[in-house]
């Protein structure tokens, strides 16, 4: 009883240990995939100061559908109308899951690229090739793999420039979207240095912004549609100057000798000539004529925004385009909707120094105008009579798949969704999934059994066997002799002592059979036939 109890405890203990180990293994795997972060930022679906809800709301107000992509850009392959779709990627804060897949040569590889797997990058490239528009806003994140596909590189080091907002700090840097750098005059941008967007203004001679084509047209505000940001006093007054405020930025480089997926690559914004890059990240700038251990940092002019298009004109009807910007936070609520952020009466994004102390207010900027113009160019209908209005299938997709969530369930959901998309979108995973489904079917076929029909089986088969080893022993001459002598003794009513004390001659007389007497007295070798004959004689002996 006690043993049974102990056994039961042991069994339960063993099972508990097994499941504990399984749980630890599962957790160790999940910890790698599910990355819960305390900072949930750059989300178009959250309305903190560092999220992008104001931008999304503006897009929705334009009558454009907005969607989130929480799993993987592999889904871009399923977009029916890429021409009228804009894919916005703001801040790639999380690396991809390294899962096996086919590479371009058809070999199996484990994705090692930052941020996005080769299949996902292919999906983005194919989306842009199909006429889609993409906007990549990142600084120190994992967007490098996408940029590389277009011959662009994020340096990943913090950039400092003289064109920073002195009321705030050196992290807030002005970016003028123009071919030449703008400069500062005191605490503000020198108006003399301000120019216009090279392509949107039509200066380059290759295309222009669609709102520019509506310049001077009189119309009510509600008819201005996607160009409402240029509506002034009853008419469209297109202005191609953009002073964008960035925060904590890096630099972009064109990779020498690498031609990307799109042929027409243009630099849209640069820093001043006095910009520096803190390469060793020590917070100090040491620059010289050459880069060495004493002067490791870089200085000069750096790129802040690069645009790659299929055609020189960047006309969406002629092919897709992708724009890289060296700051992930260019469109966050605090900068994009600075009025709401600074509004002391009705602060939309919580309290801050500007609201409480009227210090460190976000200065007026053109981030919203630039973003709206970007959307307008990408999604404005090209049909006659629909000028200024979004196209019928216009859609903006915000990539939320690389934003860590601050809730276990939300991040787990994203991970599961990612895996689902991976297994139904990636070639090798699909192959594995087919294999898995096949095995599952086989397992069901082989293992799953319906309950057996009940039937009574009458079974009383039982055999009690004796010791078969003794059969050989009982066929030996010595044993036969012993049995025979016992028979002689019993038959004559003799005790063991009497029998043992009996002389041989008397025993022979007692047996009264020469063959058996010889067998009893003279041990010798007997053949099988002789033994059988002797046993027969013993059996018959004494019957009279």
């Amino acid at each position, binding site marked *: 009883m006690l043993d049974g109890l102990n056994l039961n405890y042991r069994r339960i203990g063993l099972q508990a240990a097994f499941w504990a180990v399984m749980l630890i293994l599962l957790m160790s795997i999940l910890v790698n995939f599910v990355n819960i972060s305390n900072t949930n930022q750059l989300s178009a679906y959250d309305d903190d100061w560092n999220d992008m809800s104001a931008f999304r709301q503006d897009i929705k107000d334009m009558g454009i559908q907005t969607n989130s992509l929480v799993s993987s850009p592999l889904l871009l392959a399923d977009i029916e109308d890429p021409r009228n779709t804009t894919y916005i990627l703001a801040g790639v804060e999380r690396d991809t899951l390294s899962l096996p897949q086919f590479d371009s040569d058809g070999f199996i590889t484990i994705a090692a690229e930052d941020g996005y797997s080769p299949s996902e990058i292919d999906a983005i490239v194919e989306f842009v090739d199909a006429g889609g528009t993409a906007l990549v806003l990142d600084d120190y994140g994992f967007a490098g793999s996408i940029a590389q596909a277009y011959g662009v590189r994020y340096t990943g080091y913090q950039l400092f420039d003289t064109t920073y907002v002195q009321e705030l700090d050196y992290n807030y840097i002005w970016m003028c979207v123009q071919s030449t750098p703008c400069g500062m005059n005191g605490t503000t941008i020198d108006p003399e240095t301000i120019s216009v967007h090279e392509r949107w203004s039509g200066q380059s001679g290759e295309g222009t912004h669609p709102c520019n084509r509506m310049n001077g047209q009189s119309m009510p505000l509600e008819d201005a549609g996607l160009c409402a940001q240029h509506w002034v006093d009853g008419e469209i007054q297109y202005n191609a100057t953009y002073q964008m405020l960035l925060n904590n930025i890096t630099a972009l480089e064109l990779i020498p000798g690498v031609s990307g997926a799109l042929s027409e690559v243009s630099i849209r914004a640069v820093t001043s000539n006095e910009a520096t890059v803190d390469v060793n990240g020590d917070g100090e700038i040491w620059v010289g004529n050459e880069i060495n251990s004493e002067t490791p940092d870089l200085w000069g002019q750096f790129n802040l925004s690069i645009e790659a298009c299929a055609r020189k004109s960047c006309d969406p009807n002629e092919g897709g385009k992708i724009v890289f910007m060296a700051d992930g936070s260019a469109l966050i609520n605090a900068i994009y909707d600075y009025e709401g952020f600074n509004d002391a009466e009705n602060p939309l994004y919580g309290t801050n120094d500007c609201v409480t102390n009227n210090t460190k207010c976000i200065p007026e900027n053109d981030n919203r105008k630039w973003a709206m113009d970007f959307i307008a160019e990408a999604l404005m209908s090209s049909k006659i009579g629909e000028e200024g209005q979004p196209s019928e299938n216009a859609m903006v997709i915000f990539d939320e798949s690389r934003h860590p969530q601050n809730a276990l369930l939300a991040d787990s959901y994203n991970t599961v969704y990612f895996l689902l998309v991976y297994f139904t979108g990636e070639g090798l995973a699909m192959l594995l*999934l087919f294999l898995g489904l096949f095995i599952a079917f086989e397992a069901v076929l082989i293992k799953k059994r319906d309950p057996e029909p*009940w039937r009574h089986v*009458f079974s009383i088969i039982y*055999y009690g066997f004796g010791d078969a080893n003794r*059969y050989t022993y009982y066929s030996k001459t010595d044993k036969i002799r012993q049995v025979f002598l016992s028979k002689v003794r019993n038959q004559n009513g003799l005790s063991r002592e009497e029998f043992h004390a009996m002389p041989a001659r008397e025993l022979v007389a007692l047996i009264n059979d020469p063959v058996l007497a010889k067998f009893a007295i003279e041990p010798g070798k007997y053949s099988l036939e002789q033994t059988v004959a002797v*046993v027969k004689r013993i059996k018959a002996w004494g019957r009279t």
Partner: protein
Amino acid sequence: MWTRKASFTFTGGIALILIGMMIANLQMMILGLTFIAFIVVNSWISGHGDVEVQRTLSADNLYKGDDLYVELLVTNRSNRNTQLLEVYDNIPHEMKLRSGLNQMRLNLKPGESARIRYVLRCPLRGHFSIGPVSLRSRNTFNLGVEEMLVDHHSDIVIFPQIKEVEEAFLRSRTPKMYTGATTLRTPGQGSEFYSLREYVPGDPFKNINWKAFARTGDLMVNEKCRDAVTDLYILLDSRDIARIGTVLKNPLEMGTVSAASLAAFFLKRRDSVALAIFDDSLAYLPPDTGDKQYFKILSALAGVSPKGKMPLQAVTNSLSGRFSRGSPVFIISSCEGDGTVPAAVRDLVGRGHEVTVLSPSSIDFERLVSRIPRMSYEVLKLERQNRLTTLAGSGAMVIDWMPDMDLSQALMQVRGY
């Protein structure tokens, strides 16, 4: 539990959804979702409701080889139909289904009952239990199966068969301290008056005391003192070696039959019978007479199983103080594998007991299941004859009981020694 069909439907549904996602085919995904939804909706339809089961047996005790009539009453106590319900009464595999079926498929309406009747043949002695009742319900599309057990058991004891034994060959030379029948001061079958008691239905009319009836107006019956003539001791060898043979023919099985038959015979003669069963320990039932003792002996014999290797001399030594002087002792043993048998028998004979050794021939039982070489068999038989001769020489009556020999026929041999 899901059936195979349900598992296939579910796996197929999942496969259709995933493949639909792979090839961006909405129709395929919808079909897959339909499959899954079908499974989910079906899983809501649970099995049977509250089912009550009652089992009635024709007897609680039977003799080996008799038939047992079983009736199972299944009643639906819930307010809904049972759907397709399979009922199966679990019966021991040692019992043979003689007629009827121990299972049925039902669909009972609320409050409705059904009866399942079947007959079992009980070819083996022992303590058995019929039950529990297994229930299995399936939903309409046979996608889910639910099983449960109704913990309803019926115990039954199968006694060894009682064989007819002819007029006794043995009688104690000194039955008691006194010759002739001795009255015991307990009520029972006898000749001497014990007391008056009220009549209860079933009492024979010949026992009614008419004078007492006339005097009191109530029916009264005479009760008699129990007579005991002889104390008979039966020692049954239930050692492990007694298992040799087939399930129906082995020394122990024949031993139980002979012990039960002898006990029945002597108890019928109003003798007192004691039973000692020795295997790895000694179980002793003191001498007594009457139906109660008969039932006790049969119950004890029903539960005997071969085990252990207790020597006979240990048994006789421990019981020697309890044996009545000169009473007959029956030793039912194959006498194999125990070197103390001659000494034990000699000792009993020396104390004045009339010892009868009923010895099932184990080598012949072994021959039923094993291929024993002829010469070895002959030598083994010779050795067994020597052993029995030794016992006979000690003054015991020895019976060499062959497997195909009837008990009464075997008992006749006692004169041959």
